[in-house]
């Protein structure tokens, strides 16, 4: 699955990101998490508005591993966090680049929307 991750063209080729992928990227942005923790984090972050199903979660993870957006942690995280049945995922540099590109894309979209009556203008 190794691939050069510094290519911005390659990053923009993955846009727009599916919502589930973007949520997962946000969930593992700050610390490595296992699947169940990602699910809980997404639910908490969105006040329960978004709940990832098991199938969607792991299918997304599989695809994100293939695309190099996340990687599996080889070493276990710090004591106390460890749950030995589970695998932990963290965002890669390429994943960060893709997430940033998606944020830029969304920002641009919002900027355009503000020019219309769809969204409140920035004060």
């Amino acid at each position, binding site marked *: 699955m190794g691939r050069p991750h510094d290519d911005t063209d390659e990053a923009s080729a993955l846009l727009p990101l599916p919502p589930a992928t973007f949520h997962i990227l946000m969930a593992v942005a700050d610390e490595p998490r296992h*699947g169940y923790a990602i699910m809980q984090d997404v639910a908490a972050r969105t006040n329960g508005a978004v709940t990832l199903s098991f199938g969607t979660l*792991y299918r997304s993870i599989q695809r994100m591993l293939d695309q190099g957006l996340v990687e599996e942690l080889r070493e276990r995280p710090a004591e106390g966090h460890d749950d030995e049945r*589970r695998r932990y995922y963290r965002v890669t540099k390429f994943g960060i680049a893709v997430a940033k590109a998606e944020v830029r894309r969304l920002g641009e979209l919002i900027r355009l929307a503000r020019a219309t009556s769809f969204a409140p203008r920035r004060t």
Partner: protein
Amino acid sequence: MRAYRLLLHVYPTSFRSEYGGEMAADFAARRRRISGPAVAALWFEAIADAASAGLGAHWDILRQDLRTTVRTLGRRPGFAVAAILVSGLGIGATTATFSITDHVLIRPLPFPDSDRLVSLWQDQSYRGYPRLELSPANYRDWIQMSTTLASAGASRGFSVNLVGGGTPERVEGAAVTADLLQTLGVHATLGRLFTADEDRAGASGTVILSTSMWRTHFGSDPNVLGHTIRLDDAPYTVIGVMPPDFTFPRREALFWVAMRLAPDDFQDRSNVFLHAIGRLKPGVTVDQARADFSRIAAELARLYPTDNQRTGATIVGLHDELSIGSRTALLALTAASACVLLIACSNLASLLLARALGRQRELAVRTALGAGRERIVRQMLTVSGVLAAAGALVGVGLAIVAVPVLATLAPDSLPIAELPNVDGRLLALVTILTAVTALGVGVGPALRAGRAGVAALRDDARAGTSSRTERLRATLVTVQVAASVALLVVSALLLRALWRVEGRDPGFQTTRVLAATTMLPMPRYEATATRWAFYQRVLTAVRQLPGVESAAYISFVPMSTDLRGGIFPVTLDGHPQDPTTTHVAGVRFVTPDFFRTMGIPLHQGRDIADADTAAAPWVAVVSESFAAQNWPGESPLGRTFDLAFHARTVVGVVGNVAVRGLERSSEPQAYLSAQQILDRYMPWFAPKDLVVKSTFEPTALAGDVRRIVHEADPDLPISNLQTLEALVGADNVPRQTQVRVLAGFAVVACLLAGLGIHGLLAFSVSLRTREIGLRMAFGADASDILGLVLRRSAVMAGAGLLAGAGVAVVAGQGIRAILAGVSPFDWIAFGSAAGLAILMAGAGSLVPAFRAVRIDPLTAIRHE
């Protein structure tokens, strides 16, 4: 939890083994924190999730596999193209031929309970007519005495001149008894069928139109009923229109009139012209009907010994009303296409086996790296599926092109309306067969790779598998050689038969003679003098055209498709009258110059002359066979005989003519003067076929001939305008198509088998590079190495040749009916097929053999 683990089986195995454990743990974690109705909601969510995400995961893999497939096939385009072409060829050929065969031989006729419909024929096998039409009197008695028929009807050909509305034209139709259409079980889409009082003598004429005639001649006018049309100068009222798919008795029939038999028609039991159809009572078998009619025929033979002695009954299911020739030809083609499919499948299998063997190491490496067996199998299945699907596409294209060509083989003697189309179900079936072959061959190596694991990386294991695979491939190649040899022999036999038939002398010259039909409508032309005036006018004008050597009129030009029946008993004066040994002859009325125009040699005496009028002595020119039959060893000149209601004296003897085509035996012929026929007698035999001999390409005369006939009678249509070459050629079209298609199959089979040999030898040489190198290092020379490679090829070719010849012997017996007298063991056919097969094997081995000779021992040994 067990239930959830079961649910996880919806996901692909690779996905499940990767994430199943965690998903189950996550599910358990959530389950622990809830109770009551929330549990049901969780389950509901899990099931919906499995359905959507599971399917999605499968789709992900398929997409990935398709991408890989396209990439790997693109890397070896030769393999991909070969595999796709091979399977396409097999699928296309088989689908096309099966479509025709199904249409003609298998599908029921388009009538309700069509298996209860039978054709009724008189059987006079003793003089070569197992299927003879019925006379009206015999038909009437058969139907009255029968206990096995629920109903019956009869028809006869009825072609007429249709005048009014532009150019006069000749239209084919049929005269039917009132109960015929009811017996078939059909209904009119507009109007009604005939009633019993409409098929009596003296009834006014009624006609039912086919949809196509209603469309072309009446613009689909819904108010057509009650209109009167003139057919051969007589008025007929339109009473109905038949549905578009109704065809009877042949595809050409465009209308049906009620047959109005006069009491006179029931007098002569030897005047046979009715084609009778019966519908069996429910539960009655064809065999029971046969017994019934044999009894009736025996009874009538006792009552009317003069005409009915030794006359039996032939009862055949309407669907089996096919000549043995047509049936055999279709079955032969079907078997041939099955052969092509077999060769294609085995070639595909061979290609895939070689490829799988080549990829064995890669598969082993992938397995060793942790790719599950399921993933590898899926990948291989996708490759096979893609190849089969692409092959099917090629096959569809091929079948669409081939079916119209093959359709000319469908005989027009069956009441089947439209020509066959490519059959979708058959296409699907054949594609599935090919796909199963591809999958079967594709999955085997994948499964083995999965099982063998890392062990497959060892050299000895590889050698073991490859020798097994080679043996399998060698068997497949032998099968291909055998099938192609069988096809080659059969096509060679048919080609010999075609040449033999084409080489037969029709008895007349076909070059630079134009033929045309001008049917003279009765009763306008029922007086012999009126007709004679017409002939004189047309012939005089035609003879004056530049380049015309001679011209004449005859009742039926030889090999005319109009000709049905027309055989009469000959009574010789002074000879005892034994009805069963009565000699018969075909009757033709001719104008002078007929024999010169046709190039029929006059052996003795003179031609019919202008002076042979009704007032002069009545004369005849007879064929050699006629003379030999009636006066063996004696001169026929001056002899008299009774034929066509009058005594005639022989004034000339001409050569025999194949009047019924090159493949059927023809009865002896008596040519009578067109002026020596009583008014109103034998109107069907009034000369109507014009033949013109010219010094140049005669089609250039067509326009002038049309003009001259139009000037003589503007109401007369001209039909069948063609050269005699075309007329005789048309007789051979089905045979030519047959040979072309079979030879095409044989060539394809031969090429495929050659490719098979080439592929296998090339592969085996590349596998044995090291061994060959070692042999050369130890002193083997080029001829040893050549021998090594060629011996294998010879063994496969020899085994295939023997097996193929065996199959060909059986096949030759099966197609004896269409071999036109060529022996099924014809050594030229077998010899040339064997020669071609050896050539093909040699060509296939050439490149691998040279490659083997040019192996450099040093490089070969270092290479490994």
